[in-house]
């Protein structure tokens, strides 16, 4: 079996003369066109040969009769994609040209011209819509950093890039086709030996980038899905970036308060761990823990004392994202105007904020960042916030 070699197309197929010349040069190196698509062109490795190639733009599938007539005149059908049909003939066959009338040949590009014009509008509008969605999703809630790191913004952003590239190449192709058409109308034949090497490197780089980005768009959601996890927080000691309720309360009578609403997977939503991965946040935990002390009442006698702690922990890919994420986390969680925020100086943290409604209120919020880590803790219970901070210091060191 002969070897098949795969290559990126040169400056796209639309530059007809260049592409024909490229196929010929490949054949002279022993690489014979086998089939082609918009992303890859496949060549079969064989003996070197001098072959002429011609690209025909046909809107309807050619009949067998038509192909037979081409063959009779020395042109073999090789491959097709879309409207583009490629025919070949040995260089020394003296086959007459497929087209002997440049004006008639220019008419064969009319419809392509229209299709490309329409595509420019379609892709242009799609790009604007996607870019608009990406922008709106990222900024609608004034939490751009948080959306950036944990949302699908990266994917949207990459999609915008792909659409931009699509629009750009459609415009470029349209210009190629229009130039060819104008030349043909003026009686200038397509140069079948046009130098194709110009721009080859740039095209290869751009194509590699676009293919990589497209692959990323496909893979990121899969990786995110595979890596995400949710389970009930074990009661024993765990290696997680949290402060345990037991360490805060230090009360031997503290017991776990199990949620009534177990779901089908048997996860206790009062005591659960959710792990997520995104490209910009390789480690993200949302962990809840709830307890109850039998026989002990809340100070306002509203019921049995049942402290709880909720932790959101972000380990960011880049340290310089930490300030933005911290700011957005506070914006997201401090919706109540009665909250009073105090900035606390502590050498162990880059930033440390404590938020309380009033000193008598049982809910305390802590926001902190150090290195590339950001943490948000919501504690509901009687213990002073200083104790939680000292426990948090151990984690930050």
């Amino acid at each position, binding site marked *: 079996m002969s070897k098949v070699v795969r290559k990126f197309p040169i400056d796209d197929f639309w530059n007809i003369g260049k592409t024909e010349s490229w196929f010929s040069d490949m054949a002279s190196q022993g690489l014979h066109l086998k089939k082609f698509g918009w992303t890859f062109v496949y060549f079969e490795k064989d003996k070197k040969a001098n072959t002429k190639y011609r690209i*025909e733009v046909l809107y309807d599938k050619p009949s067998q*009769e038509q192909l037979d007539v081409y063959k009779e005149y020395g042109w073999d059908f090789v491959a097709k994609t879309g409207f583009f049909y490629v025919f070949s003939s040995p260089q020394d066959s003296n086959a007459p040209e*497929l087209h002997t009338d440049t004006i008639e040949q220019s008419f064969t590009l009319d419809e392509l011209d229209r299709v490309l014009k329409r595509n420019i509008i379609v892709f242009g509008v799609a790009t604007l819509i996607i870019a608009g969605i990406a922008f709106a999703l990222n900024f609608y809630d004034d939490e751009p950093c948080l959306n950036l790191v944990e949302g699908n913004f990266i994917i949207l952003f990459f999609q915008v890039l792909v659409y931009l590239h699509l629009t750009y190449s459609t415009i470029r192709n349209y210009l190629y086709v229009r130039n060819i058409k104008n030349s043909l109308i003026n009686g200038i034949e397509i140069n079948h030996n046009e130098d194709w090497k110009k721009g080859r490197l740039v095209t290869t780089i751009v194509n590699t980038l676009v293919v990589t980005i497209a692959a990323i768009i496909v893979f990121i959601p899969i990786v995110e899905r595979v890596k995400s996890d949710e389970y009930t927080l074990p009661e024993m000691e765990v290696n997680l970036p949290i402060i345990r309720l037991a360490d805060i309360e230090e009360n031997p009578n503290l017991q776990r308060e199990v949620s009534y609403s177990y779901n089908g997977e048997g996860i206790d939503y009062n005591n659960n761990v959710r792990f997520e991965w995104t490209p910009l946040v390789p480690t993200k935990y949302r962990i809840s823990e709830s307890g109850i002390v039998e026989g002990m009442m809340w100070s306002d006698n509203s019921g049995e004392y049942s402290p709880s702690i909720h932790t959101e922990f972000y380990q960011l890919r880049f340290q310089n994202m930490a300030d933005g994420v911290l700011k957005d986390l506070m914006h997201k969680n401090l919706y109540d105007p009665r909250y009073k925020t105090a900035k606390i100086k502590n050498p162990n943290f880059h930033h440390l904020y404590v938020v309380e409604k009033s000193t008598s209120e049982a809910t305390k919020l802590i926001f902190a960042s150090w290195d590339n880590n950001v943490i948000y803790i919501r504690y509901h219970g009687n213990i002073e916030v200083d104790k939680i901070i000292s426990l948090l210091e151990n984690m930050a060191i």
Partner: protein
Amino acid sequence: MAYSGGPMTEAMYYILLALMNPNYGYQLMNEIEQVSKGRVIMGPGTLYGVLTRLQKERLIVVVNDDGRRKTYAITQEGKSALKEEYKRLENMIQDGIILKEGNEDEQSS
């Protein structure tokens, strides 16, 4: 996109002319070569390009398609377009008659 008059390409003119008698692709090319006494040799790409276009413009129709090959014929519209073009060309020749005489003058002197 209907044909709106005006000069025809050489390919279009000869194909319409050849289709005064219904004919099929390959034979058409030979016919045109004969009619033009070898002056017009048409590439197959041009032939099928024109056939497709003329069909869309309703100047020709497929009168028979046995699956193996299609037989084309000129339509009434095609005939009148061809006649008009013939008249235009005739007028052009008429208008240029001075060239012919001038040519003869040159030869006689």
